[in-house]
Structures are given as structure tokens and as C-alpha cells.
């Protein structure tokens, strides 16, 4: 296609329509004139490019920190702690999803909705509030995440004040504006792109609200109302469907508008659009538990997650087929047009990712892939290939139209395409290899039934070369994005002094529209039973045609489709007690441990360490007895993690001496040569604020933790436990002071208190005074010598504090 092409004039279309309408004699009068708000599209497009650069560069930085963990060595720990992998990784994911892809979605929605509805956005003010509100949220994320203000739920890290802002901006400014535009449209039927936008707006609202229900204790800290297993279920119901309804459905909408536009070809199959839309929306929402295979999540939920993921395969591919087959007859254009190239490769990656998704959701495959880089490769195939390339294709298509000039350089766009494609491949292929390599090493056993690679660091070191290669791929991709930014800028410089604002006209929709009568079934008169004729009529989809002109009904049906499926999984999980069997020895955290846990959350430890041992022989040999649902009832939020860059910590309590932890925070290399963990020295110098602990305890108590002490005693209890741990460290050979400060007052002591507690209660004595425990609630499967357990009370200070 030619880049010089002027915007298609809907004038011609409108007159066609008019002619059709007047011939049917229903909508002859009432021509209205209107223009489109392209200014808002320009704003979102520029924001997309800007955040695309930030998100990818942030990605490069976190990738670099994995291979050069001591990159910030020379910097004051006070500042380098803000830039650690564990703080920046959420920044990268949030920037890629909500800033880059988010702005791209909005650009697509604002451009296409107006044209598909023959209607300007309902309110220019809401459009601007949406734009600036969203950018403000992104900036707020970029500030709070490095500061460690986080809920620690993946892709839902932002704390509650920002969450409230998101709810308002998304639902009121964006959703309200969009739905009102639909209401005021001048096109009778809604095109498939709009269905996907509706599903996006409705579902993201539901997911966002229910996953972020929290009890705040300050502007920057809150506790999830769900605990442990239930929190995990809610989070991955959200997390999986954020992928579905933020990165899939709106991009399918984008594809359905921009691909036929760019290819100038009709969409392959209307029927396929209908079937794959509804099946996708209904089935997707069930699939979340596949992120929790082999965890403490009840097995039935995990099975549902897997089966619905498998059933999701074809509905996902429906979109790919409709995209690729729309290009039939236009393949010659693909060779000469970078826009179509971006779309073809983007859709192909969509097809690949949505095949891989069901594959990874099969339990036995997931057993290998979970916690490894395989997942990282999978999401990057989707994000860089599908979301990135669809966005780039759209931007190159819009640039000449929005800036009303020629694209500055088509050949640079070509270069962007090729560098981007090679970049993706160089990124994902080594990371697939890394994931499979490490997964196999974790489970490898020797002839004697022992772990072949018992040293975790060895399995990390074996994949470092892949991490380096990945950086090359990522860099190429970034070079492509820089080219896009430059090309867009140069195009902008050749814009006209004043943008033309074409005025269009179309008749207002009138009431009393009659649907076209359902056509005769081919089976009419054929000797078959009546039911077959009826079925044939249903299959003709005329009923759906009717829904397409009823936006309220359509929105309600979409909402029902996602809510019913959600309730099927969530309600039993919350109501049936046997899903989380209680363990009598599992007790609430002590005040100091609670404070330490919040540090664990804030530092982002979960980005590299899981706390969930799966029932697999290789795993329990490496980490200890597998995790039980009842162990997590006081965990708000849950900290199961999704990637083991470092070892699992679910049984860390009592595994190392406190002095070991102290040394390890100061310099992980000292205790674990070859480790890729950076120093957390700032924890040794930061002072713990005891005065904040009562608020944490109060919230925990409010959420159901039973404490036998008064809030006024909390500070003293925490103080005494800190002193006991500091005394242990000193006795074990540690220092009394560190950089001039007593170690007992440091935040590290609280974190150590927490780590020394994690996973211990399962084997704790049944009653506080009991001597060696016979009566643990859950007996280790393989008959670990429970009787050998030493009472040890008072030695580490933990169990004593609990009893006070």
C-alpha cells in the first residue's frame, strides 16, 4: 500500500449506507454532521512509543542485573537498593503491560471506535482525563515500585491508592466514555472489534477490583483480605486474565480493525468471529489455576485450570485464523509492506503463544517448566511478538494518517521489522534452552536416587551464557523501537501547519428498527426432523446479529460469561473448608516476624525465590517436605512466587544459622560462591521502626490472627525477639555493631526473624510445653524422624515470643 494515501473518506460509506437506509424507507431524514477526535489518538500513540522505550530499556536493565549482579557495587547501598533486580523487575513488567501495551490499546480503541460507531468520542474531557490520569498512574508506579511500595502480587503490585485511581480512570473515564460513545453511535451494528473492547473493559474492571481488596494500614502498605491458597487463587485468576483481557482481547480488537484496513481485504469469517469471541471470553476466565499446578491449591482447581486451558486452544486460534486468512489474496502486499509484515509475524506469535499456553498448562509439562525461564520465554514471545508487533504495525499505519503526511522512512520501518524479528528470536530461543536446561537439572537424579545437581548455584551458572545471548536479542529489539521513535518524530516534523479535520455526516439511529427476517433454512422442505431445521437456523447466527445492535445487552451477556465462570472456581474455594485443611501447629507470626515479612515483600524477594515446594521427589529432596495448604493461612499476601532464580525458601526456617543470614545479606558471595544474588547490605544499616509494628499486628488481628497480647505490648515483644536474635548472631561469631550501629536495631534482624520462621510450624510441637514432638498434625510422608526433633525452645527466641 502507499504511505501517501489519504485517510479513507467515510463520506462515501455514509452515503452508501444512506442510500440503503432510504431505500428501506426507515432512516431517510436526520443527517448529522460530526468529526473525529484524532488529537487524543495522537497523544496515546506518542505515549505508546515513549513507554515502549522505557519498558524495553527497563527490561534490558533487569536482564543485565542477572548477569552482572554487582553492577551497582560502587553505589551507596541506600540508592542501589532502589535499583535492585527485585525492585525493577515489577517496574519492567508493569511498564510493558500497562504503560506500553495499555497506551497502545487506548490509541487503537480511540481511533477505531469513533470510526466504527461513526461518532466522536462522547466526551473530549473524559478522553483527556483518561489520558492524563493513566500517565499519572504510570509515573506513580515508576516512583513507588523502586521504593518498595508494593502488594507483591504479580502485575497487581501497585498499592491501594494507585489501585483506586486505576479503577476511576479505567471504569469511569475510559469505560464510561466508551460505553456512551457506543450508546450514541450512528452505525446500527457493532463490529467484532467493539465486542472485544467491551469484554476488555468489563473484565479488567472485575479482575482489578476483586484481586485488590485490601486492608490498608498506611498510604503505602496494605494487607490482602485473602490469605494463602485463596490469595493465590485470586491472584492467578487475575494474573492469567490480565493476560487474557489486557493483552489478548483488546489486541484482537485492534487486529480486527487495523488488519483488514491495511490489507484492504474483507475479514475471513464472520461466523468464526462470533464463535471464537464467545468461547474465548467464557473459557479464558477458568484457566488461571494452571499457574498453580502441584502447589497447595486443591487438585480439582488445578485440573479445571488445565482442562479449560486445553479447551482454550481452538478459541484462541480462531483469532489467528481469522487474521491470517483475511490476508488471502493479499500476500503479495505483505512482501512490500512493513505494516502487514508486522501484523503477519505478530499474529503468528499469537498462534505460537496460544498453542504453548495450553501445552504449559498440561500438568506434566508444567512440572518441568514451572519456576524456570521457559515461562519467561513464553511471555516474551507473546509480549514482544504479539503485543509489540501488532502495536508497531498499527503505529506505522496511523502515523501518516494522524500526522497527515507521508511516513518519513518506509525503509527504516522495514529495518525495524527485521531487527525486531531477529531480536525476538535471539531473545526467546536461548531462554527456552535455559528454562529446559535448568528444569532438567533440578530433577536429574543419579543411579542411587540422589539429586545429580544438589548445588542450586550450579544450575544457575549453567544458564548464565543463555542470559547473555538473550541480552543481544533484547538489544536488537530496542534498536527497532528507537528506530520507530525516530521515524515517528521525523514524520511529525513534516506535518501540516494545521491538521485538517474532515467533517462527516450520517443519519442518527432511529427507534423501531426491524431485524432482517431470518433467512430460510437450507433444510426447509428436506425430510429431516424439525429440530434439525431449528438448529440450522441457530447456526445461521441471525440471533447474534440482533445482539450486535444492542450494546447494553451485549455488555451484560459478556459480564455474565466472565462472572459465572469466576464464581464456579472462587466460591467453593472460599466456602468449602476441606480445601484448606487446618494444621493445629500453624500459628500467627510474631510482631517482629510480621515486620520482617513486610520487608521480604517490599524488597521483592518473591521475584527470585518461591515459597512453595511441590510434591515431587526431586523437589522434596532438595528443599524438604512439600508445602501444605494449611501452612499459609496467615500469609497476606501469599509469597509463593513464580520463578526460581534463587532456591525455594518454603522450609528456610531453621535451615541456616542467623549469622549465616546476616553474612549472606551483606555479601551473598561469601556464603554461596557463584550466586547471582546482589548484596542487601542496606538492610544491615537501616533501622527498624518498632513504632510501626502495632499497626501491622492490628491489621493481622483484624484479619483473623489470634494474638493473646495487647497492642501496647507489641513493641516490647518485638524488641525482645530482636535482642534474642542479635544475641544468637553475636554468639555465632557475628558483630555487635555494624557501621557504628547495634545490629539488634537493624531491619535485617526482623527479616531474619521471619526467615527463621518460614515453614517451621508444620513440625512444631503440638502444644507449647510438649517435649519432643510426636504429635505433629501432618506426618512427613516418608517417615522423617519426627521423634528426633529437638524442643530447642527459647534458643532462637522465636517460639518463646509466640507464647507470650
Amino acid at each position, binding site marked *: 500500500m502507499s504511505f501517501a494515501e489519504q485517510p479513507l473518506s467515510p463520506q462515501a460509506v455514509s452515503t452508501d449506507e444512506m442510500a440503503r437506509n432510504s431505500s428501506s424507507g426507515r432512516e431517510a431524514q436526520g443527517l448529522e454532521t460530526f468529526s473525529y477526535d484524532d488529537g487524543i489518538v495522537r497523544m496515546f500513540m506518542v505515549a505508546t512509543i515513549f513507554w515502549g522505550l522505557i519498558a524495553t530499556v527497563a527490561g534490558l536493565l533487569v536482564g543485565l542485573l542477572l548477569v552482572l549482579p554487582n553492577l551497582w557495587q560502587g553505589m551507596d547501598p541506600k540508592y542501589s537498593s532502589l535499583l535492585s533486580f527485585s525492585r525493577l523487575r515489577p517496574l519492567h513488567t508493569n511498564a510493558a503491560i500497562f504503560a506500553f501495551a495499555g497506551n497502545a490499546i487506548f490509541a487503537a480503541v480511540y481511533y477505531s471506535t469513533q470510526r466504527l460507531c461513526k461518532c466522536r468520542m462522547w466526551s473530549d474531557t473524559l478522553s483527556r482525563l483518561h489520558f492524563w490520569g493513566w500517565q499519572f498512574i504510570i509515573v506513580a508506579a515508576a516512583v513507588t515500585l523502586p521504593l518498595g511500595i508494593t502488594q507483591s502480587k504479580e502485575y497487581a503490585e501497585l498499592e491501594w491508592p494507585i489501585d483506586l485511581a486505576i479503577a476511576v480512570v479505567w471504569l469511569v473515564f475510559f469505560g464510561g466514555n466508551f460505553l456512551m460513545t457506543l450508546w450514541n453511535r450512528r452505525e446500527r451494528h457493532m463490529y467484532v472489534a467493539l465486542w472485544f473492547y467491551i469484554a476488555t473493559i468489563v473484565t479488567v474492571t472485575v479482575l482489578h477490583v476483586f484481586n485488590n481488596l485490601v486492608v490498608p494500614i498506611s498510604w503505602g502498605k496494605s494487607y490482602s483480605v485473602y490469605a494463602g491458597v485463596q490469595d493465590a487463587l485470586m491472584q492467578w485468576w487475575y494474573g492469567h486474565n490480565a493476560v487474557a483481557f489486557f493483552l489478548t482481547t483488546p489486541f484482537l480488537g485492534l487486529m480486527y480493525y487495523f488488519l483488514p484496513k491495511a490489507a484492504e481485504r474483507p475479514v475471513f469469517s464472520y461466523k468464526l468471529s462470533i464463535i471464537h469471541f464467545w468461547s474465548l471470553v467464557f473459557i479464558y476466565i477458568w484457566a488461571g489455576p494452571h499457574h498453580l499446578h502441584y502447589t497447595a491449591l486443591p*487438585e480439582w482447581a488445578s485440573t479445571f485450570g488445565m482442562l479449560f486451558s486445553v479447551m482454550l486452544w481452538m478459541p484462541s486460534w480462531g483469532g489467528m485464523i481469522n487474521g491470517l486468512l483475511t490476508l488471502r489474496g493479499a500476500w503479495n502486499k505483505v512482501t512490500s509492506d512493513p505494516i502487514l509484515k508486522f501484523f503477519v509475524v505478530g499474529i503468528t506469535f499469537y498462534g505460537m503463544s496460544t498453542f504453548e499456553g495450553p501445552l504449559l498448562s498440561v500438568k506434566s509439562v508444567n512440572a518441568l517448566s514451572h519456576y524456570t525461564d521457559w515461562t519467561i520465554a513464553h511471555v516474551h514471545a507473546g509480549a514482544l511478538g504479539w503485543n509489540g508487533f501488532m502495536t508497531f504495525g498499527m503505529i506505522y499505519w496511523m502515523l501518516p494518517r494522524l500526522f497527515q503526511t507521508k511516513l518519513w522512512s518506509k525503509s527504516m520501518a522495514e529495518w525495524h521489522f527485521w531487527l525486531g524479528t531477529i531480536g525476538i528470536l535471539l531473545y526467546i530461543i536461548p531462554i527456552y534452552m535455559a528454562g529446559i536446561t535448568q528444569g532438567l537439572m533440578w530433577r536429574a537424579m543419579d543411579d542411587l536416587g540422589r539429586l545429580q545437581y544438589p548445588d542450586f548455584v550450579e544450575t544457575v551458572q549453567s544458564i548464565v551464557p543463555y542470559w547473555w545471548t538473550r541480552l543481544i536479542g533484547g538489544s536488537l529489539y530496542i534498536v527497532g523501537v528507537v528506530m520507530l521513535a525516530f521515524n515517528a518524530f521525523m514524520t511529525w516534523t513534516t506535518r501540516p501547519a494545521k491538521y485538517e479535520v474532515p467533517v462527516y455526516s450520517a443519519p442518527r439511529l432511529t427507534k423501531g428498527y426491524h431485524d432482517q427476517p431470518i433467512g430460510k433454512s437450507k433444510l426447509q422442505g428436506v425430510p429431516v426432523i424439525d429440530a434439525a431445521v431449528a438448529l440450522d437456523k441457530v447456526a445461521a447466527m441471525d440471533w447474534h446479529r440482533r445482539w450486535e445492535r444492542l450494546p447494553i445487552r451485549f455488555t451484560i451477556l459478556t459480564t455474565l460469561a466472565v462472572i459465572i465462570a469466576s464464581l464456579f472456581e472462587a466460591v467453593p474455594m472460599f466456602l468449602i473448608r476441606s480445601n484448606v485443611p487446618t494444621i493445629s501447629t500453624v500459628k500467627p507470626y510474631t510482631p517482629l516476624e510480621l515486620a520482617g515479612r513486610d520487608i521480604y515483600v517490599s524488597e521483592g524477594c518473591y521475584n527470585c525465590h518461591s515459597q512453595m515446594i511441590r510434591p515431587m521427589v526431586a523437589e522434596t529432596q532438595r528443599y524438604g*517436605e512439600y508445602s501444605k495448604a494449611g501452612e499459609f493461612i496467615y500469609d497476606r499476601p501469599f509469597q509463593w512466587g513464580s520463578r526460581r532464580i534463587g532456591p525455594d525458601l518454603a522450609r528456610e526456617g531453621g535451615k541456616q544459622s542467623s549469622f549465616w543470614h546476616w*553474612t549472606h545479606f551483606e555479601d551473598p558471595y561469601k556464603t554461596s560462591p557463584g550466586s547471582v544474588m546482589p548484596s542487601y547490605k542496606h538492610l544491615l544499616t537501616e533501622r527498624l521502626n518498632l513504632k510501626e509494628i502495632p499497626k501491622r499486628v492490628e491489621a493481622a488481628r483484624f484479619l483473623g490472627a489470634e494474638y493473646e497480647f495487647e497492642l501496647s505490648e507489641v513493641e516490647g515483644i518485638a524488641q525482645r525477639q530482636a535482642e534474642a536474635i542479635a544475641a544468637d548472631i553475636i554468639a*555465632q561469631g557475628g558483630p555487635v555493631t555494624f557501621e557504628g550501629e547495634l545490629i539488634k536495631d537493624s531491619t535485617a534482624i526482623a527479616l531474619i526473624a521471619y526467615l527463621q520462621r518460614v515453614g517451621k510450624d508444620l513440625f512444631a510441637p503440638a502444644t507449647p510445653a510438649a517435649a519432643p514432638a510426636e504429635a505433629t498434625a501432618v506426618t512427613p510422608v516418608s517417615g522423617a524422624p519426627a521423634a528426633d526433633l529437638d524442643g530447642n525452645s527459647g534458643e532462637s527466641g522465636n517460639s518463646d515470643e509466640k507464647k507470650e
Partner: protein
Amino acid sequence: MNTSNTKEVSLGHSYDGIQEYDNPLPGWWKWLFWGTIAFSPLYLMYYHNGTPGRSIADQYTEGVNENTRKQYAEIGDLQGDEATMVKYLKEPKWVGVGQAIFKANCVSCHGADGGGNVGPNLCDESFKHIKTLPDIVKVINEGVAGGAMPAWGNRFSHKNDAILVSIYVASLRGSSPATAKAPDGSPIPAWPKD
């Protein structure tokens, strides 16, 4: 718009110039979709009908038992007494098993070759809490010095693990590690020969 393909029927829809064909669902797509739907209840019925041995927990227990047989069928349950330990100290195969356990669990404090790090050097002649071979097993299982040496009793998948790793630790005595921490505690008599 180009609608040159005469076999395809355009529906006459036009949205901002975008038209749609009335093509049927591709057959392979439809049947694969039905296939995945049909597969689901079968899977559900197989794995969730309550038959023992099919749940994840059951399969795990079976795996552990098999693994235990693989590891220890030959020697059965060991007793951590002196005679047993002296006997196995002479069998390189079982000292090797002890070494594997040591590598998995002990190196971050005692160093890769037992030379000591945060924890004490295990290669010299001085010990703090150990006088006899069975003392090593006791220290490993129960811990000492207020958690400086944590209790490992619950962490091993089998009782033999603590005994075999003790044997390996005993075998380290007198070796020369790459970096040796200064001796701690007091010298003790040599291990009995038999």
C-alpha cells in the same frame, strides 16, 4: 474492496469500509475444538473418581517409596551407632552418598570441601560438640549452640541420610581443604578403626 474470490459470499456488512465474508468454520478447527471439549470430562473422571494412586499426593508417596528403595534397599535402616558407622566409613560407595547429601545441604556454611565458612572447619582435629562418631549424627539431627548448627532431623527424607552424611563428615577429618578456617574447640581422640 477487493472481493474477487467468487466462491466467497460477502455478508454486505460494512464498518468504516471493513467487510466480512460468510465463510464457514474450518473443519479441522471445529473438530479439534470438539475434541478438546470431549477430552475434558474423560480426564476429570479418570483422575478425580477417587481411585487410589491417581492423585498427585498418592503418586508422590509412591515416588518417595520407590526412591527410598532405590537408595537404601541394599542396606535397610541403619542405626547411628559406632559399629555401624565404622563399618560404612570403609565403604567408599556409601561415603560417596554421604558426600552427595553434604553437597546438597551443608556446603553453604561448612564450605565445599569442609574447610569451614560461617560454620566450623570439619577437616581439622578440633571439635566443639563431638567426641565420638554417633555425636555427629546427634548434632546434625538435633542441632547445637542455639541454632548456630540447625537441627536437620526433619529435613532429610530418610533417617539414613543423617547417618551417611555423618560418615562423610567423619571421613573429612585429616583432609586438607582449599581454605581452612582456624581450628575451634579441642582435639579429640582419633575415630576407632573397627
